[in-house]
């Protein structure tokens, strides 16, 4: 005597119906979107030819543009990224402390810190750059401050998270020995978050190299200005050189950061 075969379905009939309905809606939305975008067929057909044409104009790369303009702009970009990162570390450190629930007991202070962190991150660096160009005029100062203010949120938030994940044990031990609060931070929290902190700093520096490369588009100094000039004059061979330079620097920064991180962690 065999028992009746037991039936098992992953979804109930109702769930299955819902899923089919969802697929149907997704397809309908896709069709609707393609219609709204209004792709111009001539341009679409033309695109491969345009791409080939663009690359043809970029070639050969104008290497002589590098010593003339790009090199100085590149160095400026590195300065903007590095100084901006250092400034951000200094500014973000206290904010990170204020935002960490296990360090700051007063909810009002934490809320204030969270407000700073969120405002810093919700504004794009290009927008920060536009603001600072309006205040300080075009140039590297505006770029540096834009990078710094955009980075506060990132560094501060990750530092606060690292602090909150710190093991409570050593903190308890030092509190129990009668150590004052600054010492408890220095000897129980800081050794625990130190590797994360430097890792966050390097990671942000890496991002800032990339971000500062485009800040020149709004006049905030650096290699972006060289790119902007070449683009508006339609010197595609110079555009190609600038893009190649940015690409190489980003790769180099990535390698440096990966190497140092592997050493400190």
């Amino acid at each position, binding site marked *: 005597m065999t028992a009746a075969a037991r039936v098992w379905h992953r979804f109930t009939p109702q769930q299955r119906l819902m899923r089919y309905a969802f697929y149907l809606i997704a397809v309908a939305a896709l069709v609707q979107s393609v219609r709204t975008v209004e792709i111009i067929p001539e341009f679409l057909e033309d695109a491969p030819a345009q791409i080939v044409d663009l690359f043809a104009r970029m070639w050969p790369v104008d290497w002589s543009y590098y010593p003339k303009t790009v090199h100085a702009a590149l160095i400026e970009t590195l300065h903007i990224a590095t100084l901006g990162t250092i400034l951000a570390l200094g500014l973000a450190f206290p904010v990170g402390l204020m935002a960490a629930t296990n360090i700051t007991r007063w909810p009002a202070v934490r809320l204030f810190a969270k407000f700073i962190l969120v405002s810093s991150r919700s504004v794009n660096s290009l927008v920060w750059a536009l603001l600072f160009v309006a205040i300080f005029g075009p140039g590297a100062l505006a770029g540096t401050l834009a990078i710094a203010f955009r980075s506060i949120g990132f560094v501060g938030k990750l530092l606060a998270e690292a602090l909150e994940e710190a093991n409570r044990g050593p903190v308890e031990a030092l509190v129990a020995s009668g*150590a004052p609060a600054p010492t408890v931070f220095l000897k129980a929290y800081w050794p625990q978050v130190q590797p994360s902190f430097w890792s966050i700093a390097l990671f942000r520096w890496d991002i800032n190299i990339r971000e500062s490369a485009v800040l020149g588009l709004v006049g905030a100094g650096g290699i972006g200005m060289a790119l902007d000039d070449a683009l508006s004059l339609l010197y595609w061979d110079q555009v190609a050189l600038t893009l190649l330079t940015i690409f190489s620097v980003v790769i180099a920064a990535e390698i440096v950061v990966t190497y140092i991180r592997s050493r400190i962690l």
Partner: protein
Amino acid sequence: MTSVEVKAGAAGGSPDRSLRIQGLRKEYVRGTPVLRDVSIDFAGKGMTAIIGPSGTGKSTLIRCVNRLVEPTAGKILFQGQDLAALRGAALRAARRRIGMVFQEYNLVERLTAIENVLCGRLGYVSAWRAWLRRYPQEDIDGAFELLEAVGLADRAGQRADALSGGQRQRIGIARALMQRPDLLLADEPTSSLDPKTSVEIMELMVELAGKRDIPIVVNIHNVELAKRFAQRIVGMTGGSVVFDGRPDELRDEHLKAIYGGEAWL
């Protein structure tokens, strides 16, 4: 070691090291006390073991003494002060005189063994000097002597996370004694260790604290270890003291009252 003791003696003779707990009550949640008005007097010498099932308030009791846990009501009298009423600098000063050994050792993992021992002095050294690691020479001498006393002189420069459990607990004991305390609290100091190491750790605590005339209050769930090393046993269950006497007075019916049931005996 000798220089340390001479110093302590010169500072104020031999202060009273007894501890009196009166009507101590702790409610983590209002209306459900974990400690139900516990009153115990601890003599100023020897080891007192507090035994009892998990969750019965042993840890809470010990942690109320150095205020890692805030008592809800009651008095904790030590050297003419009510520890339960202290705040700020006065509380830190009182904590400096009470050493604590933890179940999970609570060492700062990324600091070396010697620096973990020196952490016992952080209540005395300013944050600034701690940051620069400029500990007074007599503290450094004391730390080396203690490392020798716990048998880890050759591990001074090793990071705490490179040590075994037993070695870490030895460092934990050295750190607590580094405070030159008038009372040593130990919260389940052997629960994370194997049986042989547990005995060694208990022997070490008794020996080193005995030499310095420091009374020990230890929480321990291992009844055999308690009977072997303590001169007095306090049995707790449900937040109240149900046995208080010498180890040889502890009978099976007491253990039944403390732990409940008898199948395990």
